[in-house]
Every structure is written in C-alpha cells, then in structure tokens.
C-alpha cells in the first residue's frame, strides 16, 4: 500500500515536470493575447456573415475599443440594420441601441449568453474583455507548431465562484499572440462552440486574425464569420464615445 502511493506520487511528480515547462506563464500568454487583440485603443471596420442552412446575410460594422473594458460596435450596412449599436462597459454591462425605435436597452445579465444580433456570437463574446485573465485558472497543456511558430495550448478553468457559464475554455495562442482557436466547453466538459481563425494578416502594424469563424458544434451548417477590413491601433479615441448618450446620438 505504501509502495503503491509512493509510486503514484513519483508518477505525479514526473508528469508535472514533463508538462509544466519552466518559464512559461500561461496566464501571461492569455493576457498578452488579449492586449494584442485590443491594443491600448483600437478602431476597426469589419463585416459579419451569418450562415444558416437556408439563408445567409452579412452586415458591416465599425468597432471601437479602449483599454480592456470598453467596446462600442455600430452597424453600418445593410440599411435596414444600419445604426444599431452595442456598447460594452466592464464585463457584464451591455447596452443595445435600436435607431428604429430610438431606445437604448440594457441587456440583463441573464441574457449575456444569448445570441448577439442573431449571430452565433453571444453578448458575452463580443465584449471580449480581460475577464478571462483574472476569473480563470490557466494551465499550459502543450506546445504545438504552426507555420514555424510555437502555439501554446492553454486550458482556462473559471474559479469556483466566478459567474461564468462555461466549464472551461481552451485557447490556442501563437507565440506572436495571435489566437488560432478558442474552444468553449460546458459544465460537462463537452465542447459547445469553437472560434477558429481562418486567415492571419498584418493589419494595423501587427499580425492579426482578420478572418474568424464561430461554429456551434451541434449545428454543422450554421456559423458566423467575422472579417476585419480596416484596423488601427492606439489612435486617440475620446472617452465620450463610450457613453450612453453617444450610443443614442453618435457624435462621430
């Protein structure tokens, strides 16, 4: 009995040593990936295509972000949807503006995992804040190779008390901080949806995932793709942009 537990201990220690590469900080990589994605501030022009078995539609939108908490997205086309906007402050304060009715609606926290504007992204996904850095425990699972780059595969498990719907998330982050894949797993550790990077280009002075696809695993024929056309980092973005009054009456 004692020998057996000793053996188990030795095995545990050995495997620990094998996976935990010294000097690699999984949490740091996740933080850097988000910083890389958001910059100090960012301005982007993108298009989003929602694909369903019997229809497909796309929208164009502009996005602004500042720091790690503030995000504003405004739809520019098609005309029927133009002007709709979403403002994110902090981790779970999301407001939606609909020009047709000229109202701002705060999305209740119970609706954060619901679809954002009919896409496969949830209200939570689009905010993409640095919440994951502090609210999760990060472990480096392995290091893969991709086009001559190292790819860190990191498992992030939310803290027991964190208000997170996922059981865990797995990120594939390249050594230049471009995220290649992001898996969302439910509490039963079944993969629910995967965000995959389809194209990486140099944009706004850095390598960037310019084309990504979100895919619900259960629905093979349904996905949402986002392509980034223009990207500019660290430009001056006034703070009033991220206010409710600007959400309703854009000054730009």
């Amino acid at each position, binding site marked *: 009995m004692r020998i057996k537990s000793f053996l188990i201990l030795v095995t545990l220690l050995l495997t620990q040593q094998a996976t935990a590469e010294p000097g690699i900080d999984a949490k740091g990589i996740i933080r850097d990936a988000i910083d890389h994605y958001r910059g100090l501030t960012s301005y982007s022009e993108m298009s989003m295509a*929602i694909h*369903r078995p*019997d*229809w497909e*539609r796309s929208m164009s939108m502009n996005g602004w972000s500042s720091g790690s908490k503030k995000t504003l997205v405004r*739809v520019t086309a*098609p005309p*029927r*949807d133009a002007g*709709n906007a979403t403002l994110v402050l902090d981790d779970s304060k999301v407001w*939606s503006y*609909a020009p*047709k*009715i000229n*109202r701002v*609606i*705060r*999305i*209740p926290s*119970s*609706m954060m995992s*619901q*679809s954002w*504007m*009919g*896409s496969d992204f949830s209200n939570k996904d689009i905010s993409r804040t640095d919440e994951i850095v502090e609210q999760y425990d990060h472990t480096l699972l392995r290091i893969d190779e991709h086009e001559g780059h190292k790819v860190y595969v990191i498992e992030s498990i939310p803290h027991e008390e964190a208000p997170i719907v996922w059981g865990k998330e797995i990120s594939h982050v390249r050594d230049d901080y471009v995220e290649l894949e992001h898996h969302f797993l439910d509490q039963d550790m079944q993969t629910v949806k995967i965000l995959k990077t389809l194209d990486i280009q140099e944009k706004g002075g850095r390598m960037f995932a310019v084309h990504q696809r979100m895919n619900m695993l259960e629905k093979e024929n349904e996905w949402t793709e986002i392509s980034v056309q223009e990207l500019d980092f660290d430009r001056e973005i006034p703070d009033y942009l991220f206010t409710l009054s600007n959400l309703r009456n854009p000054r730009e």
Partner: protein
Amino acid sequence: MTNTATTLAWRNIWRHPRRTILTIAAMVFADTLLVFMLGLQFGQYRMMIDNSLRIFTGQMQVQASGYHDEPHMYRSIPAADTLAQLIRDQAQIDAVSPRAYSFALVSSDTRTIGAQISGVDPQYEPQVSTIPGLIKQGRYLSGGSNEIVVGSILARNLKISPGDELTLLGSGRDGSIAATVAPVVGIFDSGARDIDRQMLSMPIDTFRDVFGMGDQAHSIIIGGNRDQADRIAAAAKAALQGDKDLVLLNWEALLPGLKQAIQADFTSAWFMYAVLIVLVAFGMLNTMLMSVLERTHEFGILLALGVRHGKLGRMIITESAVLALTGMLLGMLAGGLLTWYFLVNGFTYPGMEAMSERFNIPSVFHPEVSIRSLLPGPLAVFIATLLASLYPVWHMRKLRPIEALQAV
C-alpha cells in the same frame, strides 16, 4: 350423469342463500366502485387534457417539420393565413388560428426581461385559447395593430400596467434586427405559471412587420371538440396536400409531459385497485373454503359412493364460477348505471365552481362510460375470485372417504 356436478353446484349455492348473497354483494360493491372510479378517472384525465390544451396549445397544430424539436424562427409555414382558412373550410370549424413566435428582450422604463412573444390572430385566437377570456386588467387585442397583452407575472416583473409602453428588441426571421415600441392594452392571468411569467401576445400582422415574417407563421392551432379529433385531423391532413415540409402534431406530441403525468397517475391508481381486488378475492376464498369444509362429511359419502375427486372439483369450481359471473354482471350493471347518472348530470366537487371561474374552464365534468372503464375492474375481480376458489379444490383433493366420514 354429466349434469350432476352442475345440479349439485346449483343446489349448494342456494344451501345458504344469505351467505351467497353477501358474497355476491361484496363483489358487486367492489365492481361498482371500480367501474365508477375508473370512469371518474378517465373523465378527469379528459378534463385535465382538455383544460391544458384549451389554455394555449389547442387540440393539434400544424407546424413546419422540425420546428417542435428545434424552434428556429426560419422554420415557418408559408402562406399561413390561406392554409388556416383552407383547414377551416375543410374541417368545418372556426377554431383554427395561426400563430408566430419569437424570443426577444422586453423592456419597460425600469426593467428588461427576455420573454416569449406570440403573434396571434385576434379574430380566431379566442376560439383556440382561453387566454383572451382571462384578461385581468384592460382588454384583449382588438384587431387594431401594434398593441400588446402581457402575462400577469411578467407584467409584475416589468412593473407595468395597461397604458404603459414596452420596447421589444430581438432578431427577425431573416436575421435582421427586430425592434418595436407598443402600448400594453391588457394583462392576462391564465393560471399557468410558465405562460403568465414569460409570454406576451401581439397581433400577428404587427408581429410579421416587426420580425420580417411576410405571410408566414410558426404554427396553426386547431381547436374544436376532442370527440371529433379524428375527423378534424383527417380534414387538416387533407388540407396540407401532402406537403412534406409541414407536419400535423396531436396533443401527445405537443405536450408529452401531460401524457406522462397521466400515465404515472394511472399506474399508482391501479395499485389501490389491486388492493381492492385482492380483498374481494380473499372474501371469496373464505366463503368457498367454509362451504367446502362444512361439507366434509357429505363429500366423504360421495367419495364412498364412487364419485371421483375430479367431479367434486368441477362442482366446486362451477359454484364459484356462477357466483363470480353473477357478481361481475351485476357489478358492471350497477357501476355502469351509477357512472351513467353522473355522465348525464355532470359531476362536481366543492371548489370546482371557483376554479372554473379562475381558469375559464367548465365547472362540471363528466365521467366516462365505455368498455375501458366498464370491463377491466370487474374482469380482474372475476379472475381473482376464480383463482381464489382453486385453493378449496386443492384442499379437497387430499380427502380420504374414511377420514371424511369420521369428520364432524
């Protein structure tokens, strides 16, 4: 000689008329109870089903195939109003109403809640749903456009009353952003918590404008009397003209939980009935055993005269069969008459009046008189009684003439 067993059996039955009559009476009583309870139970299930279906579901629904399992907005019925009218004509009922559903953020001045929006036809909806008759404040949809009625719990959570405005924000059928502002004209209280907590209705024309539905709907609700369900279903099927994209769903498919609840209740009721049946069987066992034991001396003489055990056994079984059959027939008759009385006059119990007012449902219900309520109980008692009479037969087979003659 072949008839001696029968003749003897018949005489034995009337040897103690009071005992015989009491035994039969016990069976008749149990049978009456079983028939009445089963009839009541079936009547109650029927009422339960009808009342549940009447609230919102309808007797059956036409839907795009796959919508029931995965309700996506784009799984819809094209030209739904035309199809609804066709079903009305073919089935010759008015209770056919198209509906469209969506899920949206509903926002009052102070609160925002996710809720189910149903677009309904104000003209036909009252025929397939009790909700239009359960308005607690304000009024139901009048057929004008752009108005909303809200479930009572949802209204309380949103802190609104008739006259207030609600803002709706969701996605249209084509994925576009759907938004509207509309005044609340009424608040309904259906008594079904799920519906009162998370549903609001608006005219289907407004719904179609807001959610980009064109002339489509997600469901065509068909109401009407359940006695005619088969005829209506056949007519509705014909109206679908073999369209493979559309399906007709009956209530079992629409509310599988209700069917399961009824089955569970029925199973547990049978345990009680089983106890009753076993009790009657033991009563019968007692009677037959008594009548065999008291005749030990007599059987001894018969055996000594050369009558075989088999003949004696047949005689005893004939006796109990006559008793059991008489009990069964009388029991079915008595039970049937009792149930039939309430079928004609309606059955009610204290508090039902208040309930009927509260939930907009009938205040009496009618038990059922049918093969399935008449036969199973009495038949089970009959079989159990016959089985119980086998013990005295088995007991008698060990009898030796000499010992039997010496018995008192």
